[in-house]
């Protein structure tokens, strides 16, 4: 397909502030014009998107594809299908595979396999330390050449602050951004739930908010000392959001994201030990959730990610503390962001910026806008269409979600990558 027209659509481009009804034209995989109808454009394919929104393809900063090594949970095939079914056209995958992404060969293989599937763009995040053990640095130069866009230690804290400082300095040397999950490993040790009434009632080992704020303070102090660019992955608390706000006001080059579930759920949703509500970081209190919503709305938190963590049923059919943390998220990202936008009374473009242009900037990739000349990666969605979250409705191999059986609103109709329609809802 070399030419494509999408007509009668509500075009929403958060990057440019565009929000109008009109047409969008694609030639040779790139957007050539947005807005007015062009009568002389000859499109091989025309999609009538009446009643639908056309946004840049979504950009997800954290989607576990489980390859290599964890194929019993999910595969590249299944999860890239889930990505395009959810309108996600670019995604970053964390290095917590088995083995972890600490070798260029692994990254090249992943990139190659993703290219062969020709669906969403896959941007691997390389391991910051070998084996994610927090001791020795990885060959970041080689890993970047192989395709890594950033470096992180996944959900494992680098305990040794000297190693952490050097890792940040080394990454800074080559202009790479370090992504860090702020959680003090000592305070969080053994913990599985937010320290509060729910954990106390249920007798679940707690993770105090101080586990997040202590590690944030460490990260910010090192960012200040090394003048390096840091991305904070998965904030969970009101206190953490306040510290991020102060760090930005101070002028530190810091960005941050939050998982979509943390904008909707809190520790009360654990109910009677529901393993689907076990997350890393843990779901915190209602005040934390509300503060995270405010921080995303005012731009303190830059991006919302799915924190996609597909798990097999066996890994969830366990006592709460033994169950795999996380939920499948690629296909729920858009509806749950739309729900947040409705509840927070935010303009659609503002809400969508948190899953398009802002994460694209953090990734440093050419994506997340409808500007002429940009790659034609698009998400065409019906913002009003309800659908029920069932096993059959999810393309992801992971059926693990606290939204199982519930109805959500907002459904992807077409997903377009490089000008090709790669997903069409039936």
């Amino acid at each position, binding site marked *: 397909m070399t030419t494509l027209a999408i007509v009668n659509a509500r075009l929403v481009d958060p990057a440019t502030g565009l929000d109008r009804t009109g047409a969008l034209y694609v030639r040779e995989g790139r957007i050539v014009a947005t807005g007015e109808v062009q009568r002389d454009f000859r499109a091989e394919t025309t999609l009538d998107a009446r009643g639908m929104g056309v946004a840049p393809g979504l950009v997800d900063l954290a989607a576990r594809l489980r390859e290599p090594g964890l194929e019993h949970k999910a595969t590249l095939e299944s999860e890239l299908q889930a990505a395009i079914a959810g309108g996600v056209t670019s995604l970053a995958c964390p290095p917590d595979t088995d083995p972890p992404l600490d070798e260029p060969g692994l990254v090249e293989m992943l990139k190659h396999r993703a290219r062969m599937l020709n669906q969403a763009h896959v941007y691997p995040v390389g391991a910051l330390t070998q084996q994610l053990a927090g001791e020795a640095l990885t060959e970041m130069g080689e890993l970047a050449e192989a395709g890594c866009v950033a470096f992180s230690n996944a959900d494992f804290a680098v305990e040794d602050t000297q190693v952490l400082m050097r890792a940040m300095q080394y990454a800074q040397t080559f202009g790479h951004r370090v992504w860090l999950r702020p959680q003090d490993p000592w305070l969080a040790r053994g913990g599985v739930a937010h320290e509060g009434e729910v954990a106390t009632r249920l007798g679940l080992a707690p993770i105090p908010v101080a586990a997040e704020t202590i590690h944030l303070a460490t990260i910010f102090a090192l960012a200040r000392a090394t003048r390096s660019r840091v991305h904070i992955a998965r904030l969970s608390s009101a206190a953490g959001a306040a510290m991020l706000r102060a760090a930005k006001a101070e002028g530190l080059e810091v960005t941050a994201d939050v998982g979509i579930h943390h904008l909707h759920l809190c520790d009360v949703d654990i109910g009677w030990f529901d393993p689907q509500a076990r997350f890393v970081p843990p779901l915190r209190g209602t005040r934390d959730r509300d503060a995270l919503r405010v921080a995303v709305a005012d731009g303190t938190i830059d991006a919302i990610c799915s924190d996609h963590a597909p798990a097999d049923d066996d890994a969830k*059919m366990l006592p709460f503390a033994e169950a795999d943390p996380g939920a499948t998220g690629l296909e729920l990202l858009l509806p749950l962001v739309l729900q947040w936008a409705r509840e927070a009374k935010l303009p659609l473009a503002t809400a969508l910026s948190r899953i398009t242009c802002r994460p694209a900037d953090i990734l440093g990739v050419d994506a997340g806008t409808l500007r002429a000349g940009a790659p034609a990666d698009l998400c065409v969605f019906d913002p009003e269409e309800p659908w029920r979250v069932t096993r059959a409705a999810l393309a992801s191999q992971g059926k693990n979600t606290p939204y199982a059986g519930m109805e959500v609103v907002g459904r992807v109709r077409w997903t377009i990558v490089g000008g090709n329609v790669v997903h069409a809802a039936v």
Partner: protein
Amino acid sequence: MARSSQLNAEGRLTHLLTLEGLPPGIITGILDTADPFVSVGEREVKKVPLLRGKAIFNLFFENSTRTRTTFEIAAKRLSADVINLNIGASSTTKGETLLDTIDNLCAMNADMFVVRHSESGAPHLIASHLAATGRSDVHVVNAGDGRHAHPSQGLLDLYTIRHYKRDFRELAVAIVGDVLHSRVARSLIHGLTTLGTPDVRVIAPATLLPASVGALGVRAYHDMRAGLAGCDVVVMLRLQSERMKGALLPSPGEYFKHYGLTAEKLALAKPDAIVMHPGPMNRGVEIDSAVADGERSVILPQVTFGIAVRMAVMSTIAGN
């Protein structure tokens, strides 16, 4: 999984998973049912035929000779067939999951599982699995899960208190020790507050109290003397040896000095205050022998009542 599924559609108890949220009538109903069972143990033939032909599996994923034995005796006095399985921690290394074990035992026509597990929520998981697989006729009794709940212990503690003190609505009860890790404390607190006990206190150093403990409806004390003042009931908790030296506490000696129950400290409680302990006791760590063996100690009657209460629990849920 969203709700505690221990009550059936008619509101009757079909599993015993926790005392939290149980209607007071169900709790007092079990205590009333236990009354005649106390005398069964005193008869020459210590058996009643209530659960004849029923297969009860004692499923202990965590070792506990005492609790397992009391459940076994209770089941046998109800004429049930009892099968003890000490699975310990090795089951997961063998590769069989908790729910696989349950499915296998259901295939052997189990009628009831008495479950002890080191993880909070394991009995809830089993109960919801049974419901999801259409075996709601199989019952689950939580015999202690992680730090969460030990409801049969909570009930026997309530039975003991009622036996000596009668009206819960006039009592001050102090629970002393490692509340943080204690399923016994959590279950007793829920039971007491449900039955209207106006003054429930927990006494411990800050390292042994969970966050927001006040949300359970108790008042927290760090000073044992202040906490014991005017109490009707003193419940001492067991301090596990691995927690006596480390970041929670510096030494058993210092613990005993500040939180061990001595005759001198007990004198601050009401003159007729009773002393309870779920066992096994660490003499000289949480309780002085003179108090443990003293005239106000009801620790051994607790054990006797425990069998009657467990008979009441098993016959109640099997009959619903």
